[in-house]
């Protein structure tokens, strides 16, 4: 480690890597240099002057270059003429830093005094009061009195909405630029900026709608004062009254670590409610950031229309009943159906729920007819083999590494991954983006391929061919193949945009084979740390659903079954033609999603849900489940990291955890007694039944270790109000490739879905209306509207202009959309956005309304 330098902070000797700032280095030995504008995740600017310290360097003789020594043999130190900002000065060998001298103290007092001349000191009503860096540093370093005239205090507007989500209090702003720098450097959404100068300076939003960014909530976390607050939490409670509960985001495959702040409220009738969602540091997953989707979509847990009691159909209508009647009915009906009973699950429930679900069918009913209700993307079996190796961290990717993103708009589908991929590209990693249309990642791509419609699979196959031959072809595909094979580390993401399920399977296997191509040193890109495949799953626990065996042909742990059951598609057709008589649907809404046409010829339909969905409305028995906020469990993220979440609020009504309901049904059918806790389902069920999870239990998943940079701890000024991780970093299970060579996959053939005159694909939007997001009123103005994006040439041909109402008929459904001609769509391809999922390239008919 040649790039370590030795410095002395207040006499403490420490070794830090070259390039660290004095502030960050001092933090290593718990010397806190106070800061406002500095943030360990942002480039230093030295704007607030709070970090002034004395910095000295050993003197050298100008003539000889030899160190000048004191009489006692120690080096003579040149302390310079004044104070320097610790956040902008980088460490150098032999550097001395003094942080506690009188002159430093006086400088800090002056800075605080000066900041407070323009600060309203309305801490009693400020949402930041109690977790405010300015408050804390004033208490620590403030003088307590001021030489300034109170009458000259600047008075500014206190209620400036920067869009619908974030409010600005101009008075409180201390002009540290953390928010604008975050938006520029990290979120790449430079939609807020400084306007005017001096005391008239204000933060303005430059976008329409205001503060148009998926990351806006993070600026309120890192704001060192209460200038930026969220519309969702505004005046919700004082920070010290809130009870923090560690949790995992129930949206998206990244598995962002969050903390739910809860409080018992009179407004909510005395219930404990979630007041806000804050990020929890996990440098391996989401660092200290969360998207606004994760931050604001929590209201569904407290929604008034949650199911509170079991419902049973009597005389054609659903009426409330007691648990015992409901469970007995379900158990009897399922047992009567026996091995012909079918089960469909969503990919949102916890591993415990999913494991219990498949156990009920496989062991209780001897039925393999279970599948995910809405399978969009295949490849769980592939990522189990060659998925990103355990111990990997996207934060470690940089120069010499390659990241491949195929058929996915990460910004909309998995924003945290978008952020981390983008940052890796900025650190020097080569980014290969293959997509049918332009996305937000294109800007950072080293190699960009917009393949023609329907040729995603063909393009990846071409790439694989080029990699295997490695003839140094000079065309673009050849260059990409060369970059991938020659890279130190390769991580490949694949999604499902414009692809059918079968196509994603081919895509996953082709990419897996591509990663397995050995370079000249004999290394492949699987089974090594920071290498491997990541599927951009549609939901938070799709990976877990694969692992737990929610698949007609794969039992838990990817063990193949002798006689595969019906897939979801076969179950849906069976419902229509009467071959499936009994169906159990958990946490999914196939009727609402248009996958199942009513209840068909079903004899018995049981639905386990949070809300009375379209499917639940036609069910015979509806079982109220608890949301993730009401109980504990584990989710497995797209990097196969198993993470725990904890109960935050009381159960709504009589709702029960999914796994408990299922085990109670199972018990009535003669299976084991229900477990007492989710932890036991994990220990006795999952750890024993899923080989990949055998070395895990709730304790090992909850292990924490010290993380750098040290943010979110007691010293709020350093990193903002993201929470310290005290409840577990999770545990990644090892892919097959890590414990031995895996064979190349046989890639099946697939015919791309047929395209009409103008092919149409459905693209993802983070704020697509849905069961959960619709219950967060704060996001309603930002919800993705049903839109048809057209290229200008195509729009001309169809004589459609921006703003026109159009009707698009897709798979027999007609969608009312508003047309947009704005460059989002390439020529010859139309995009539909803000509508529910539709697979593959759609043969759609576009008409003006």
């Amino acid at each position, binding site marked *: 480690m040649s790039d370590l330098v030795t410095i002395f902070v207040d006499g403490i000797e420490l070794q830090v890597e070259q390039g660290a700032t004095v502030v960050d280095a001092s933090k290593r030995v718990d010397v806190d240099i106070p800061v406002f504008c500095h943030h360990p995740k942002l480039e230093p600017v030295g704007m607030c002057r709070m970090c002034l310290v004395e910095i000295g360097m050993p003197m050298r003789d100008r003539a000889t270059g030899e160190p000048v020594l004191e009489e006692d043999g120690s080096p003579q130190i040149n302390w310079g003429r004044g104070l320097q900002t610790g956040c902008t000065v980088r460490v150098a060998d032999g550097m001395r830093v003094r942080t506690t001298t009188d002159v430093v103290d006086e400088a800090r007092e002056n800075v605080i005094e000066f900041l407070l001349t323009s600060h*309203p*000191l*309305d801490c*009693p*009503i400020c949402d930041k*009061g109690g977790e405010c860096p300015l408050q804390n540093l004033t208490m620590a370093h403030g003088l307590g*009195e001021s030489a300034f*005239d*109170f*009458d000259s*205090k600047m008075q500014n507007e*206190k*209620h400036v909405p920067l869009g619908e989500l974030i409010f600005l209090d101009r008075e409180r702003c201390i002009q540290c630029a953390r928010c604008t720098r975050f938006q520029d450097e990290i979120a790449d959404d430079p939609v807020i900026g400084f306007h005017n100068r001096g005391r008239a300076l204000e933060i303005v939003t430059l976008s329409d709608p205001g503060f148009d960014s998926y990351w806006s909530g993070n600026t309120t976390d890192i704001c060192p004062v209460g200038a930026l607050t969220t519309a969702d939490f*505004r*005046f*919700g*409670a*004082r920070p*010290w*009254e809130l009870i923090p509960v560690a949790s995992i985001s129930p949206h998206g495959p990244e598995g962002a670590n969050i903390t739910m702040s809860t409080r018992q*409220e*009179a*407004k909510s009738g005395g219930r404990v409610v979630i007041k806000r969602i804050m990020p929890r540091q996990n440098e391996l997953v989401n660092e200290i950031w969360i998207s606004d989707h994760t931050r604001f979509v929590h209201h569904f847990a407290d929604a008034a229309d949650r199911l509170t009691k079991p419902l049973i159909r009597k005389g054609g209508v659903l009426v409330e009943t007691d648990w015992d009647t409901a469970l007995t009915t379900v158990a009897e009906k399922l047992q009567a159906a026996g091995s012909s009973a079918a089960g469909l699950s969503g990919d949102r429930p916890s591993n415990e729920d999913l494991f219990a679900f498949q156990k009920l069918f496989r062991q209780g009913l001897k039925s393999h007819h279970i599948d995910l209700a809405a399978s969009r993307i295949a490849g769980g079996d592939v990522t189990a083999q060659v998925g990103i190796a355990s111990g990997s961290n996207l934060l470690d990717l940089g120069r010499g590494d390659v990241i491949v993103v195929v058929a996915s708009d990460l910004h909309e589908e998995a924003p945290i991954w978008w952020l981390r991929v983008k940052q890796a590209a900025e650190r020097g990693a080569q980014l290969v983006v293959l997509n049918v249309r332009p996305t937000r990642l294109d800007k950072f791509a080293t190699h960009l391929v917009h393949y023609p419609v329907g040729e995603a699979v063909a393009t990846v196959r071409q790439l694989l061919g080029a990699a295997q031959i490695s003839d140094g072809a000079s065309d673009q595909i050849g260059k990409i193949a060369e970059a991938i094979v020659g890279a130190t580390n390769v991580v490949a993401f694949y999604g499902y945009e414009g692809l059918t399920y079968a196509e994603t399977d081919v895509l996953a296997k082709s990419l897996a084979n591509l990663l397995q191509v050995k370079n000249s040193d004999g290394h492949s890109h699987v089974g090594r740390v920071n290498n491997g495949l990541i599927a951009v799953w549609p939901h938070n626990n799709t990976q877990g659903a694969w692992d737990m065996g929610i698949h007609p042909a794969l039992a838990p742990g990817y063990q193949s079954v002798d006689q595969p059951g019906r897939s979801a598609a076969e179950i849906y057709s069976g419902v229509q033609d009467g071959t499936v008589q009994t169906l159990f649907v958990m946490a999914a809404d196939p009727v609402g999603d248009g996958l199942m046409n009513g209840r068909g010829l079903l004899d018995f339909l049981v639905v386990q849900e949070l809300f009375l969905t379209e499917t639940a409305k036609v069910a015979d028995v509806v079982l109220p489940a608890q949301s993730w906020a009401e109980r504990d469990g584990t989710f497995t993220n797209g990097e196969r990291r198993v993470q725990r979440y904890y109960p935050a609020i009381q159960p709504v009504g009589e709702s029960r955890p999914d796994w408990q309901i299922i085990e109670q049904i199972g018990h009535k059918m003669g299976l084991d007694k229900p477990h007492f806790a989710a932890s036991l389902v994990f220990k006795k069920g999952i750890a024993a039944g899923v080989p990949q999870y055998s070395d895990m239990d709730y304790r090992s998943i909850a292990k924490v270790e010290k993380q750098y940079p040290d943010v979110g701890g007691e010293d709020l000024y350093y990193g903002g109000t993201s929470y310290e991780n005290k409840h577990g970093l999770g545990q990644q299970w090892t892919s097959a490739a890590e414990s031995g060579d895996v064979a190349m996959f046989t890639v099946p053939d697939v015919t791309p879905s047929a395209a009409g005159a103008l092919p149409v694909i459905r693209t993802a939007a983070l704020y697509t209306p849905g069961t959960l997001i619709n219950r967060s009123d704060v996001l309603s103005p930002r919800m993705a509207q049903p839109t048809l994006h057209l290229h200008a040439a195509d729009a001309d041909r169809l004589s459609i202009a921006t703003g026109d109402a159009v009707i698009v008929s897709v798979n027999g459904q007609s969608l009312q959309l508003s047309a947009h001609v704005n460059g989002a769509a390439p020529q010859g391809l139309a995009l539909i956005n803000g509508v529910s999922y539709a697979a593959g390239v759609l043969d759609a008919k576009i008409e003006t309304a």
Partner: protein
Amino acid sequence: MIDGIVELLRGMGITLSHLFKKPVTYQYPEEKRPVRYRFKGRHELKRYDNGLEKCIGCSLCAAACPADAIFVEASENTDAERFSPGERYASTYEINMLRCIFCGFCEDACPTEAIVLEDKYELSFYDRASAIYTKEMLIVPVPEGGQDTPQITEPGMFDRSIPDMENPK
């Protein structure tokens, strides 16, 4: 012996003299003694002269309370529906009088002098629930010339929660 009798008579004389003095006892509850200036009795939530509530729902009283007797929940003011100056007001304000120890820390913590321990001391209840004093029970009547809350106010008139500080003399 004589001395003893004299002392005895003198003592009885004092007793006798008290028969003709005004008694110091009060016939409570028919007769009530006024409380002292610094007496700390039941709390009141004060109003400004125009009727706006002084309480801004900051919850500092609840934070200062050693008995955890106070519960505050805040909401946002608008000019169309204004309860207090500034952006924040207490939509729920409850004191559990069974818990309160009348220490007055809440008064000290209050940045707007909204909560004051006044002179009412007759606090007895038949059940625990009635010991919880709500905002409606604690708040003082609207002063003469003032308006009840919520008020409709002109924009920009009342955008400051806390009265401006004065220069130290």
